[in-house]
């Protein structure tokens, strides 16, 4: 045991050393590349000021331009190495700000953007990828394959312009007189019906009945939304929250234990009931003075109560029941928050800062909001979310395709394995075979991709941030190139390089944890 621990320790130490070496090498390369390719003195070429020589000399001494780049790198490195004993110094930007401060301001903004879109892309991508794998060679599979290839080939800046036009400008115009025209209504219904019917699949008769049902339902729902001016005063209400909660209850039970397991269905539906019944009492907790803590508190209450009830449902399979109830409560509480945000929408939209154009095309927050609005947690969250819509949509569309392809391929490969055949031969239900034996194994390699995706944030967001004028890491990078700001460039670069190697390391460790086969082979 001690030997194993020692071996693990040695492994981690070796990897850490290697990481430092890689970041060192990469940063040396990048420093020299950037130092050679940019020339801060270029700005003086057309300068006719009398003290030009003086200014040039000043700049040279300030940026140490008289030291050759390979040596200058080590001057820069000294500040980084000092980070080992807590005095990290990445130098000053050209505007005499510490690079660290600029990065500290930019990083939360980038992360907000990337985390939102990555989570969405993962949920959508994996769901659709797995369905296409289960329905391999179906019409839905072909259509999704084509769509994912198409999204794969889209330049993000091009998509961004289209989104700005159709999702923001046109939608804002539409909100001035929000009534949905009949052709759009019918078209929307048909598309929704087609998507749902091909998702559910089955026999031809079932296909048509689902198609018809969903089409009519969608048309009816949209008509209702249009007639009640829902876009101006959106909300879900207790009925909507209830529908969502019970829907989640059925869905979660179906995926995790199967609907025939009555005990866990009871646990899940009682969780849904708690969320629904709690709609009015919980509104008290979500008042205008609330903060992030209140959200946590609401979640603790709904999940705690649901878990408690699930505990008493049955002695057998207690853990499964509690798990199902907790997941249902978590998912079911989300519409509650959504509803709370929507309650603020009417006031937010008509306020002076927004002036009836709620979907913004630029920036990460609305600076014009009044102090009162900024102080209100729900209004400021709503503002943040509205600003997230466009960039998140753009990034999600682009990265979603990768997850679809990945999870489809992965699940198809796993479904060809011998242990799947064994599971089928044992007479397990198709649900158990696919969810328990198939999906779990298919998702293993995802850890690697996921971690790397989060690390690739900075590179990935450069264009998106530029198009939507978010002041994150990508913008810092753009700025550093355009102003020949070597220190700023290196700050951004080293952070991104370090995140990448760290992510690789974490991914390897995690993979060993989730997949015991890897450890044995080692």
């Amino acid at each position, binding site marked *: 045991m001690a030997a194993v621990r020692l071996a693990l320790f040695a492994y981690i130490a070796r990897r850490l050393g290697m990481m430092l070496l*890689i970041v060192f*090498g*990469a940063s040396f*390369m990048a420093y020299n590349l950037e130092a050679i*390719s940019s020339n801060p003195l270029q700005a003086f070429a057309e300068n006719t000021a009398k003290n030009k020589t003086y200014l040039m000399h000043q700049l040279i001494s300030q940026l140490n331009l008289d030291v050759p780049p390979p040596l200058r790198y080590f001057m820069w490195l000294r500040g980084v190495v000092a980070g080992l004993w807590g005095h990290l110094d990445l130098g000053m930007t050209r505007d005499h700000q510490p690079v660290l401060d600029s990065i500290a301001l930019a990083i939360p903004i980038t992360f907000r953007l990337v985390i939102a879109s990555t989570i969405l892309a993962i949920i959508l991508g994996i769901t659709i990828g797995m369905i296409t794998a289960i329905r391999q060679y179906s019409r839905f599979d072909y259509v999704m394959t084509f769509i994912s290839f198409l999204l794969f*080939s889209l330049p993000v800046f*091009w998509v961004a312009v289209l989104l700005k036009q159709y999702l923001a400008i046109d939608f804002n115009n539409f909100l001035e007189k929000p009534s949905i025209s009949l052709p759009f209504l019918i078209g929307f219904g048909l598309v929704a019906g087609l998507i749902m019917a091909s998702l559910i699949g089955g026999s031809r008769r079932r296909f048509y009945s689902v198609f018809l049902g969903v089409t009519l339902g969608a048309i009816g729902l949209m008509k209702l939304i249009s007639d009640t001016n829902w876009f101006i005063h959106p909300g879900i209400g207790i009925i909507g929250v209830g529908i969502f909660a019970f829907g989640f209850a059925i869905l979660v039970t179906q995926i995790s234990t199967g609907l025939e397991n009555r005990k866990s269905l009871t646990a899940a539906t009682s969780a849904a009931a708690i969320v629904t019944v709690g709609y009015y009492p919980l509104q008290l907790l979500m008042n205008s003075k609330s903060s992030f803590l209140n959200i946590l508190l609401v979640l603790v209450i709904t999940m705690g109560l649901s878990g408690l009830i699930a505990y008493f449902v049955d002695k057998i399979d207690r853990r499964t029941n509690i798990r199902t109830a907790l997941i249902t409560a978590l998912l079911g509480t989300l519409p509650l928050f959504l509803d709370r945000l929507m309650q603020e929408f009417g006031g937010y939209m008509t306020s002076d800062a927004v002036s009836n154009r709620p979907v913004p095309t630029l920036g990460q927050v609305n600076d014009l909001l009044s102090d009162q609005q900024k102080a209100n947690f729900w209004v400021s969250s709503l503002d943040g979310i509205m600003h997230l819509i466009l960039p998140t949509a753009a990034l999600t569309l682009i990265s979603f395709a990768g997850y679809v392809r990945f999870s489809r391929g992965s699940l198809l490969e796993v479904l060809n394995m011998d242990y799947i055949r064994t599971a089928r031969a044992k007479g397990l239900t198709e649900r158990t075979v696919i969810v328990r034996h198939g999906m779990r194994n298919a998702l293993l390699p995802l850890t690697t991709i996921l971690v790397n995706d989060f690390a690739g944030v900075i590179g990935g967001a450069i264009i998106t941030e530029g198009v939507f004028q978010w002041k994150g890491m990508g913008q810092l*990078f*753009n700025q550093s*190139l355009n102003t020949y700001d070597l220190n700023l460039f290196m700050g951004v670069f080293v952070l991104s390089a370090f995140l990448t190697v760290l992510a690789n390391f974490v991914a390897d460790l995690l993979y060993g944890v989730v997949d015991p086969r890897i450890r044995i082979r080692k």
Partner: protein
Amino acid sequence: MAKSKQDLEKSSDKNENEIALRETEGLSQGQIIRRRFFRHKGAMASLVVLLGMFLFVFSASGIHLGSAKQPINIAGWWPHSFKEIDPEAALKNVCSNGITGCPTLDILPSFIDGTGIKIGDHPLGTDILGTDYLALVTRGAEQSILVMLIVGFLGVTLGTAIGAVAGFYGGVVDAILMRVTDMFLVTPTLVIGAVIGFRFGNLGVVPLALMLGFFAWMGLARFVRTEFLTLREREFVDAARVAGASDRRIIFKHILPNAIGIIIVSGTLLMSGAILTESALSYLGFGVRLPDVSLGLLVSQYQDTFNVSPWMFWWPGFFIITIALSINFIGDGLRDAFDPRQRRRISAKERASAKEAKGRA
């Protein structure tokens, strides 16, 4: 019920295997792969589209190579050049919303809008200076294709060489090469591209592409290395070594042909990535610069006038997407073709005819 369904599945499995086996009887590996590829409808359609686009682009705008000092220019059949400035041309065609340089292309036949199909002298319109937009777009596409080919070639060559050496020799060589690969890999492509583009963008597209290619081999090298690591442990390599084959012979004659699938597939992905990287760089202003044009640059120039002259925005995007999409589909077809586990879907018709043939026999 469940049992009978499984039985059915099993027998259909067996039938499919038989059909697939009979088809590949007496064919070489290359022939099988080629057949599989030609059967992939998406890939074949994409190949036709891509070749058609290559032909159109290069024949229309001609071929422009070489440096600024010694240009090699072969004129194309399209009469307008992307350098031509002709303000009168812009004024000649005015859209209904008052925008000059309106496209003259009309693909709706006369029974729909009453004007009939025509191409006109500036089918995609002109920009504000009167430069023909078709000339601009084909020039941009030409640049993108060039970047794609150069980056693809360089990336595949470098990646294969480095991956092969690392995987074949292992040990210290492998460790050093892989650490170097990691070093390049931690640098986001766009970051390196931007730095390079900032310096080499104004030199023209070929130096830019060469530099980009120099930083594009890492993913491929990793794949090739893994492939080589497994292949070199195989019996046929031992057999070759016992027979006295040199390292070079083993690498080129025995291992490389077996790894060609993964090389080709990652190569196509590399190429579709390259075209997107180049357009993104040009969009950001770090790639191809004015007065030369590229597709990304055109998009960035005309994104703000999307409302009044949307065609200026659609066309470059259309070219980027068509090229990238075709390449991705071709890559998918190649992957299916090279994957030995890949089983083609046997259609109901084929199954029936196979059954019939069996019955007759």
